[in-house]
């Protein structure tokens, strides 16, 4: 199952990955990281194809894509 | 001993090169020397002056307030620069361009340098005639030594001019001998 792992402490909640995800499988989480951001998390593993666009657009280099 | 030689002439007359030759020759015979130029702002055609110090002691100041000798290559040089020459100093004048003998409390060597160069058939030897006269007039160096230093300074391709240069140095020295009497 393709999977996206986001380093919650590095995520700055810029939303680019969420916006560019073609499958809407990412969302902002409820939790708060040490910098005060709500890091992005994967909400729908089923729909993820592991295309890697989230990692491509992420300026914080905090997205790992498993396929 | 300490000789402070001041030289002046128009740019293009070879003032600086002649001054460097004298300093270099001084070095070659074991003296402490310096050569210091002052150019006028124009790169060419302006006025050139230089000061050469020759001494068996410390050179100290490379500039000179009261030179002990002068080589003046044209009328303007005589007019503008002659005054500070020390009493009893030696003034070598290019009489081809300065017909009137400067008067004063100093020795004067009138050297028709342009005429000598013309007779030799090499107009670039004007300054050599003046150097020859100065060398003999001060008795500081033999023209053979000067010629040797010139040969060492000149690039190989200019060595063909050496006979003319030596000739001019000798002709100048003959006139210079008279000042030592």
């Amino acid at each position, binding site marked *: 199952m*393709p999977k996206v792992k986001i380093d919650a402490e590095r995520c700055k909640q810029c939303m680019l990955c969420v916006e560019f995800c073609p499958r809407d499988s990412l969302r902002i989480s409820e939790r708060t990281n040490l910098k005060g951001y709500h890091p992005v998390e994967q909400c729908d593993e089923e729909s993820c194809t592991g295309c890697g666009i989230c*990692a491509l*657009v*992420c*300026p*914080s*280099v905090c997205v*790992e894509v498993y396929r | 001993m300490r000789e402070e030689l001041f030289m002046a002439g128009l740019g293009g007359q070879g003032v600086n090169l002649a001054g460097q030759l004298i300093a270099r020759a001084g070095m070659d015979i074991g003296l402490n020397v310096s050569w210091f130029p002052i150019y006028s702002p124009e790169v060419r055609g302006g006025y050139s002056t230089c000061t050469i110090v020759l001494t068996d002691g410390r050179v100290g100041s490379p500039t000179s307030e009261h030179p002990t000798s002068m080589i003046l290559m044209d009328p303007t040089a005589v007019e503008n620069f002659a005054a500070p020459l020390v009493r009893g100093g030696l003034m070598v004048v290019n009489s081809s361009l300065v017909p009137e003998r400067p008067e004063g409390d100093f020795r004067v060597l009138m050297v028709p340098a342009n005429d000598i160069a013309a007779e030799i058939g090499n107009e670039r030897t004007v300054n050599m005639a003046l150097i020859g006269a100065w060398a003999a007039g001060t008795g500081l160096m033999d023209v053979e030594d000067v010629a040797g230093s010139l040969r060492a300074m000149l690039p190989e391709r200019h060595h063909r001019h050496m006979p003319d240069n030596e000739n001019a140095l000798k002709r100048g020295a003959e006139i210079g001998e008279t000042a030592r009497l």
Partner: protein
Amino acid sequence: MAEAKLINPYPKGLTEVEMRYCPGCTHGTAHRLVAEVLEELDIIDRTVAIATVGCSVYAYEYFNTDAVQAAHGRGPAVATGIKRVQPETVVFSYQGDGDLASIGMAEVVHAAARSENITIIFINNAVFGMTQGQMAPTTLLGQKTTTSPQGRTVEAAGYPIRICEMLATLPGASFLAREALTTPARIRSSKRSIRRAFETQLAGAGFALVELLSICPTWWRMDPLEAIRHVEEKMIDYYPLEVFRDRLAEEDEGGDTNA
């Protein structure tokens, strides 16, 4: 089904140090692309990165290479000094638009004129970021900044400078491209040009510069997505995306013709 494998390992060209850029700032994207290219070309250990003055001043902490921090605008001169001493070293200067197009204009132009065998990564986000949002030489007409509060006007500040087009007048510039760090496709294209710029240096072909249109959500006072739209809708209009010069390709074509 086989176990899922990590398809994008963290680039070896970056250190573990967390970049201190604002949320959404595409400096991070540019850093990652450069780092990936260094890794792919296997040149990390013989590369010297030059960090200049601006938001990317700490680039020496992020690139996993030897690094030199340069005075404001002088990256190309420092790169020249290094390259002339160590021709085998890969040298790149990472500069923003204030650094390169304002105070450092002379250095970049002359490095290009000499066809200095170096690579320049030029981040154009049309604003001075580090000093808090002042007008840059590349600020668009009408764009509001902290020093053009009514919007940049021609009367007051003249026209924005198109660096690539200007450098393209110099025969010494061997690779020149403008890309944008906006959409996935454009980011991929950016990486191709960055790679090409380093290949140009590795081939000894001379000066290479990649201009990357970037966003500054903070000083544009937009959220990152709005900012990306702004690049797409406004900036690209004035700064067309193009490979202006690719000497390696020209040489290849020349070779083909002769064959």
